[in-house]
């Protein structure tokens, strides 16, 4: 049906992953860092689905469902931490929380 190689699919996943990686490193706002982590997880999912359709096995899609589950759990905990950060420091700067204080 479509004439693309596995290489192209992995390239798309790689580009998106490194964009997310760059976002995590550069942004200081915690909301944007969480969004970048989502981009990275999504890129990993693309790699799994592409490999799954290359070998025509459902395993890639099963792995994507697991990644989706993990992303949902990660985001719920991450956003709860973000709300606490905002409540205590009145800021979304990741550097505001550099002291653990026990």
């Amino acid at each position, binding site marked *: 049906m479509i*004439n693309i*190689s596995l290489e192209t699919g992995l390239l798309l996943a790689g580009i998106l992953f490194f964009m997310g*990686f760059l976002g995590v*490193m550069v942004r200081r*706002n915690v909301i944007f860092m969480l969004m970048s982590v989502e981009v990275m997880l999504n890129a990993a999912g693309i790699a799994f689905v592409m490999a799954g359709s*290359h070998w025509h096995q459902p395993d890639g899609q099963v792995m994507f469902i697991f990644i989706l589950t993990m992303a949902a759990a990660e985001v719920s905990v991450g956003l709860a931490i973000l709300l606490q950060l905002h409540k205590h420091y009145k800021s979304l700067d990741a550097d505001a929380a550099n002291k653990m204080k026990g």
Partner: protein
Amino acid sequence: MTVIFYIAAAVAIITTGLALTRAHAVHALLYLIISLLGVSVVFFVSGAPFIAALEVIIYAGAIMVLFLFVIMMLSVGKANIEQEKIWIKPRTWVGPGIFSLILLVLFILLVSGFSDTPINSAIIAPKQVGISLFSKYLLGVEISAVLLMAGIIGAYHIGRGRGKVKHRFMEESQ
């Protein structure tokens, strides 16, 4: 169909780039939703319609709306956006940009020549995925259930209002 793949991939990459460079959180979120829809089209044309639907429903529909709710709760004002613009000056992008570009080039070199044969894009039906999910990966499903439960309890525990005391061990020091 090949053209659709390339267009959707280009849309996904461009909108992800726009999303990660916006100063306003809601704008970034909307670009990210477009990016996820583009990725969903990529899944659809490469023979994974079930995953394409899950991407739209769960990623774009549920997780991004969760982000939107939190941004609305925090009521990001003009001052935050100005602060954000100061944080994302071009100078801060140089160092991380160079190093992640090096890693990306290494990744491309590793992947290129991996497999030139076109991918088998025949549709893998949801039935096959379901059978595989609930037979071979049943343990994984159970562990995912435990993970989601831990996520719910963790989010409740962290997000609950506790008055002035941050932790029960800190009551003496307060």
